[in-house]
Each structure stands twice: as structure tokens, then as C-alpha cells.
């Protein structure tokens, strides 16, 4: 124990802090319940990064659970974690409100709860130690800005028509990104019309179908905003198959397929969001809270704009 403490002390201050907690309590146990790991590679990469980060830190043990997108299962998992007596719980909510009572139960047991990736509703803020994740509303507005700037460059900001392909109905991330985009677009580009929005369910194939219908229905589409790059690439495939060129595609959560499409010059821009950053930030926030450090309540990690112009500054996403 002593050697390990010394080793830890010589590396980083945060780890030092962790070691201090470990000195007093033994290794801290942190439980996480994720939203739906199988559903896309962002969540899978998040899970792997989380486990890797935890393994790299000797003072942390983690219990990793997956709710499979099911609220009931997630609530059961929070109860399980409380019952197992973990030191802290990280939750990636399946529903920003439904988990509030479960979170309250944890806070009544003095277990600090950290919300990750997608926040819970305000009513639950009292029971939460911190939120760590991207700011989805800002992401939506940034996407609107990317699209508007491009239209201005092209000189079509006066008349451009845009369609939106949103994420899985009902998920906070989908709702917030759409809201951010819809609110911001008229502010920056008042003359651009958002013609129609349909959900693509975070699914590339579904989004391709939706886009095919859009293309048939509207002869004039200048831009497509999709809730993530996976769907954006699906829409791009549809446009390519229909031989429609010159459409500006803007997405969010830059997946490697989106990055490649940008390299190829087919896809204009996105929001760079790393699941590794996301996972590490969540774990770090939990450790900081357990060590009694001051943590901002809304602990956003940065998710910058990425377009064909500046993509050289970013490494290609691994997922």
C-alpha cells in the first residue's frame, strides 16, 4: 500500500487525491449505469474508455452496468448499486426525469450521484453532485452556426431550405440537439427555412430512407442537419444515390464515417465529441467529488465545431 501511495504521489495530483481517499477508505467503488451500450459505437467506446480509465487507476474499482435503453432496468440497477454499497454512482439517464426518484434514493443514502452525457431534469438537480458531459443545446446551436456560415459563404443564406433528421424520439440528447438547432438557426440566418423534421432513430439505414423521401418530395434542398454523423452519412448516401449534389451536410458527434466523408469532401461539418473524453471526464468528476473537491455543477467538456476547413486539427475518431 505504501509503495503504491508513493508511486501514485509521483504521478499526478488527481491520483494523489484518489490515493488519499484510498488511504482512508480502501479503494473507492464507483458504479455506473449506462444508457444502451449495444446501440451505437459511441456508447461502446465510452464503456471501454471508462473501464480502461478505471483500470489505469489503482484506487478505483468500477461496477459497469448497462440499462439496455430500458428505464425500469436502469432504476433497478441504481437500486442494486445502492444495495451493494458503492461509494458513488454515475448514471447516463435513459430518461432525464424518470430516474430522479432513484437518484433521490441514492442521495438519501449519502451516495453522491454524477450524471453523465445527457442531463437529468432540473427537479432532480438537488440530488445530484454534478453533471459531466457535452452541452447538447450548445451543440445544436453550433451546428446551426456551421450551416449558416457555409450558406453565407455560398451566398444562398437568403433562400436556403434545410431538412432535419433528428435522433431517436424521446431521448434527451435528440430533443436538446434539435432544440438548439431550431432555436439558433433563425437567429443567425433568419431567411433560411427549416422545411421538415423527421426522426432517423440514430440509425443510418432509417435515415437513408427518410432522406430518400425528402429528396423525392422537395426538389430544392440546400442543407441537411442530422442529430449525429451516423444518420448524416445515411442521408449523404441517399443524396449520392439520387445524384443530388451541392447539399450541405452538417451533423453532430463526429463519427469516423463522418470524418472520412469530410475528408472526401462530401460532408461539410459536425461537432467533435469524444466518448473517451466523455468517459474520462465522468470518472474524474466522480473521483473529485469523493475526494471532497469543488466541482462545478454543470461540468461540460468542450465539443468544438469541426468542418472541412479545420478538420486537420482533430484526430480521426476511433469509433
Amino acid at each position, binding site marked *: 500500500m505504501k509503495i503504491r501511495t508513493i508511486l501514485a504521489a509521483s504521478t499526478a495530483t488527481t491520483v494523489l487525491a484518489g490515493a488519499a481517499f484510498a488511504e482512508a477508505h480502501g479503494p473507492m*467503488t464507483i458504479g455506473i449505469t449506462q444508457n444502451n*451500450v*449495444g446501440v451505437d459505437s459511441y456508447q461502446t467506446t465510452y464503456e471501454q474508455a471508462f473501464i480502461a480509465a478505471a483500470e489505469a487507476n489503482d484506487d478505483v*474499482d*468500477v*461496477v*459497469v*452496468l*448497462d440499462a*439496455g*435503453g*430500458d*428505464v*425500469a*432496468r436502469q*432504476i*433497478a*440497477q441504481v*437500486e*442494486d448499486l445502492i*444495495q*451493494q*454499497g458503492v461509494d458513488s454512482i454515475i448514471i447516463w439517464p*435513459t*430518461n*432525464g*426525469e*424518470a*430516474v*430522479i*426518484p*432513484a437518484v*433521490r*434514493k441514492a442521495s438519501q443514502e449519502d451516495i453522491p450521484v454524477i450524471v453523465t452525457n445527457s442531463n437529468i*431534469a432540473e*427537479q432532480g438537480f438537488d440530488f445530484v453532485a454534478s453533471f459531466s458531459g457535452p452541452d447538447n443545446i450548445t451543440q445544436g446551436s453550433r451546428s446551426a452556426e456551421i450551416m449558416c456560415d457555409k450558406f453565407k459563404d455560398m451566398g444562398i443564406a437568403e433562400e436556403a431550405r434545410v431538412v432535419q433528421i*433528428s435522433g*431517436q*424520439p*424521446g*431521448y434527451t440528447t*435528440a*430533443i436538446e440537439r434539435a432544440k438548439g438547432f431550431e432555436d439558433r438557426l433563425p437567429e443567425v440566418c433568419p431567411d433560411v427555412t427549416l422545411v421538415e423534421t423527421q*426522426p432517423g432513430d440514430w440509425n443510418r439505414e432509417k435515415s437513408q430512407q427518410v432522406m430518400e423521401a425528402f429528396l423525392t418530395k422537395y426538389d430544392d434542398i440546400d442543407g441537411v442537419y442530422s442529430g449525429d454523423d451516423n444518420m448524416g452519412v445515411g442521408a449523404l448516401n441517399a443524396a449520392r444515390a439520387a445524384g443530388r449534389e451541392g447539399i450541405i451536410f452538417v451533423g453532430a458527434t463526429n463519427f469516423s464515417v463522418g470524418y472520412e466523408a469530410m475528408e472526401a469532401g462530401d460532408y461539410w461539418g459536425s461537432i467533435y465529441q469524444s466518448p473517451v473524453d466523455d468517459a474520462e471526464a465522468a470518472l474524474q468528476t466522480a473521483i473529485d467529488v469523493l475526494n471532497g473537491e469543488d466541482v462545478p455543477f454543470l461540468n461540460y467538456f468542450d465539443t468544438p465545431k469541426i468542418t472541412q476547413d479545420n478538420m486537420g486539427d482533430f484526430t480521426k475518431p476511433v469509433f
Partner: protein
Amino acid sequence: MKTGALSEALKKGGIWGFIVLELIFFSVAGQFLSLSNSAFMDLDNMLLLLKQSAPIGIIAMGMTMVMINGNIDLSVGATYAIAAIVLLDSMTWPIFAGLGDWVILMSWTLALLVGTALGALNGLIVWKTGVDAFIVTLGSMLGFRGLVFMFNGENPTSNLNWTLVDFAEAEVLGLATATWFLLAVTLVVWFIMTRTVHGRNAYAIGDNREAAVNAGIRVGPHMMINFAIIGFLAALSAVVFYSESGSVNPNDGQLFELWVITAVVLGGTKITGGAGSPIGTFGGVIAIQLLRKGLGHIGADTSTVNLVIGLILIAVLFIDRQLNVKGKQELRI
């Protein structure tokens, strides 16, 4: 005769044996794999298990009735979501504004009524059109889900009422509210199926519909009643669960039908109708919840959980077939 008696015992008690096996496995495996300090078979953990079984378990009781009757209901997940929306939304309706906390009672009643009505609608269609229940409820699974989205678009419907939450989280005699509901429903359904004319007729109809008709049983009303009951129970499950969680996503309850049917079949109810028991279903529900909880306890990931649960379902069917295997001298068709 002895082997017959043994296989009979195995058939009847198979699900409980399976539960015991699960408990032993997860307790032992948990020693090596789990990070938890508390044992898997901790009393608190087991009480929690009962509570967590409630959402699936309450619906599974209804499914037991419908399946014994020779039908199936694939729309329960969507009914569950609709009832949850009615429950949470109606609490904010202006006409109930003056009621104070009495609004809870109104909302509960409304949600249960809506669930019952949707179930009865399924039953009525099955009865009057003669279309197979599988198709009718496959259709309404889509249609009801459409209604869910129509209600509030893609947004969750939320209304966190702390009185309600406190009630739902309360514990009486060490058992959570949800547990009491599960136990009560199990008891009532058991009573209906074994002690009432309706129950006996449901078995008869499921076993051989023509014979039941010839015996003068009115098949249609019995089927409709069972569909109404499963609709009611799907709504009750929603009432119990969402009283505590206070917010429903429009896609909540998806795949519930899969879990519920799995539990019912694990519990020994025949998919072709005519045989099964609510007590067996109770065992099936516990077995599934135990499996989920146990796999989480030992740190299995989503893919393993899916794989294991699918294979177990098939294995149970296979073992059931082996126990019922006919002698070589029986007719091979």
C-alpha cells in the same frame, strides 16, 4: 411409473429448481467476479428482486391468462406506455385542479380504465373478426405505439408528484409497494384461474376450442374478458412503476412483450393454450429477474445477457420437450 413421477415433479417444480441453480451459481460466481461487498443472496437484495420483478411480473400474470386461453398479446408494452402517459398527464388536467392529492386517485382510475379499454378493444376485434390474436395484437402493438407518440410527440411526459413517489417507495412489513401489488395480483389471478368458472372455462377453451364450444361455453366473451384483464394489468403495472419514476419516454415498454412471454413460457404455460399456472409464471418472472440481476452482479455485458437469455429460453423449451417425450411406440407425426 417412477420415472413418470420424477418427470412430473421436474415439470411442475422445474422453474423453482432453476431458480435455486441460479442462486447457487451467482452466489459462488459472485465471490470471485463481483466487486460488491455484500453477498448475492443477501435478504435486502432478494427483497429488492421482488420489487424489481413487479413491472414485468404484473403484466405476466395477465399474459398467463391470455395464453392459457389460447391467445397471445403482443401489444402490452404499448398499452403500458399509454397508461403511463394517461396517469402522468391527467394529474395536470385543469378539471382535476381542485382535488389536491385526490387527483392521484382519479389519475389511477383513468389510467386503469384506458388500459382495460384498450385490452378489451383487442379482445373485441379477435372475437368479432376471427382474426388470429397474434395478428390483431401485432397490429395494435404498432397502432397503440402510434397513439403514444400522437399524445406528446417525441417528448417524454413527466409529472413528478412527490406524494405519489413517497407512496410508491413506501415499505410495509419490509415489502415495497410494488412487491405488494405483484403478490396481490398473483394471488387474484391464481384465484380466478383455479377457483372460478371463468378460469376453468379459459383452460377448456385453450385446450380445445371446438370441444369448449360443443360444451356450450361462450368462447368470445371469455377471450374478451381475458384481454381486458391483461390490458388492466398492463396499466396497473404502469401505474405502479410510473408512480415512482414520474416520467415516461414514448418508447418505454418496447420489448416488454418479449420479456413477459419469456417469463410466462419459462413458468410452464403452454404457448398453444390449455395449460399453465400463475404460480409457475411467478417463478418464471423471478427466474428472469434473477438472471438479469445476477449477470449484472458478476459483470456480464449486454451481449452476454442477450445471448444467455435467448439460449435459456430455447433450452427450457427443449428440456420440457424431453420430459414430455413420448415412448417409441407412440404415433410419430
